């Protein structure tokens, strides 16, 4: 059970108020038409699946409905940091 800090509401709330939206910092190819099949497939379907630190997007669905980023450990489930959209993580894997 996560207890997640929403950086917009400025409060810790229970997991039920949030939805996970998968990997963060995915960049859409600037010129999709010039992508090879491999580049486009990688963009569409290949996601990081680490045993360790993972940067992911959560949305405060039953609250302010804003999206933000979380760095979380995928084995211990410990949330290392929460940061707003457009910011970069401070806690990164070595």
């Amino acid at each position, binding site marked *: *059970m*996560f207890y997640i800090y929403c950086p917009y509401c400025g409060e810790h709330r229970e*997991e*039920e108020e949030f*939805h*996970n939206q*998968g990997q963060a910092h995915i960049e859409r190819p600037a010129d999709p038409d010039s992508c090879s*099949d*491999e580049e*486009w*497939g*990688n963009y*569409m*379907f*290949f*996601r990081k*699946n*680490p*045993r360790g630190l*993972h940067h*992911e997007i959560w949305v405060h669905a039953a609250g302010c409905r804003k999206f933000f980023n979380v760095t*979380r450990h*995928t*084995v*211990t*489930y410990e949330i290392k940091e929460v940061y707003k959209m457009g910011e970069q993580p401070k806690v990164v894997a070595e």
Partner: protein
Amino acid sequence: MQHYSGFGLLKHSFSHHENWQRVWRNPTPKKKYDVIIVGGGGHGLATAYYLAKQFGVTNVAVIEKGFLGGGNTARNTTIVRSNYLWDESAHLYEHAMKLWEGLSQDLNYNVMFSQRGCLNLGHTLQDMRDIERRVNANRLNGIDGEVLDAKQVNEIVPILDCSGNARYPVMGASWQPRAGVARHDAVAWGFARGADMHGVDLIQQTEVVDFIIEDGTVTGVKTDRYGDIMADKVGCVVAGHSGYMAAKAGFELPLESHPLQALVSEPIKPILDTVVMSNHVHGYASQSDKGDLVIGAGIDSYVGYGQRGSYPTIEHTIQAIVEMFPIFSRVRMNRQWGGIVDTCPDACPIISKTPVKNLFFNCGWGTGGFKATPGSGHVFAASLAKGEMHEMAEPFSMFRFHNGALIDEHGAAGVAH
């Protein structure tokens, strides 16, 4: 190896069942094998069994880091069905179903396969349209299926609330009479015993830490206990750890590992003699031979390797179960657990060659791998024996995520997606 029979049971009863042979050997690995299977779960053991028995490749080792069948094989909810929508997956799961039907005889080991039927409930008009489409597709593929209305569903499962008073009233269901459940541990043990009997070495408590790759061709594996073991071909069947192993071999897989939870109740008298699943309200249940209700939840939405899930997911599933079966509202739950499932973007498995020559992967079964165990093992064994993918495995290539030939089974894959 001794043959199991009723007579044998009687004979051993005179010596108080103290003289049964060990079911499989505990060998020290050789230096080189024709085929090494990484991972001793149901699919890996089935692969080894069919390789040795049907395809004549007996110089095989299965290398397992824990104990046999100790991962998701021991953690699933044991449902077997083949009512998938698309031709590719329908053929694969039906292939498995046909093997299930003769499996206990074939293995000389009772896997307690019980064809008690499976209902997939529909609660909305769209559900019913999807069910009709899927059942029609199944019948065209020679798979049994019927569309039932709420009254017919209630005749099969009288304790199901089919009144109009439910929050999401049952409108009907798809019904596959040949579907059912099997004893999950017995499946792993039966395949392990069969493989061992045909000369396969089952190497337990030995972790494969890396692959040995020369000029883009795999030539063996590095293990933590026995050093390097060489092989002509390597099949990797490690479910939730596939992404991790693929990284060792230098490529990526489009898999995400998620926690998937299940729970069982205290044993109660027989009350539910079929499998009931509902995608819409998100819960499914059957009753085991011991009498406990076996209940499955959906996957947690986040990536996790912790073998435990979130409480809200369980609560959500229990709400659905109690809504469908009001009579269960006071049943106490006995145990709850989580496994790690490797989910693919299109909810279909990967049975495939890889960018590394002679290295094959069988993974991505997500939430529904148990039902495919014999079929998956059989087609993977055929592919490993020939070095070319079996025609049923061909559509499940890992390269489909680049050429676009996805097989979207999110509907038929069931509750958990």
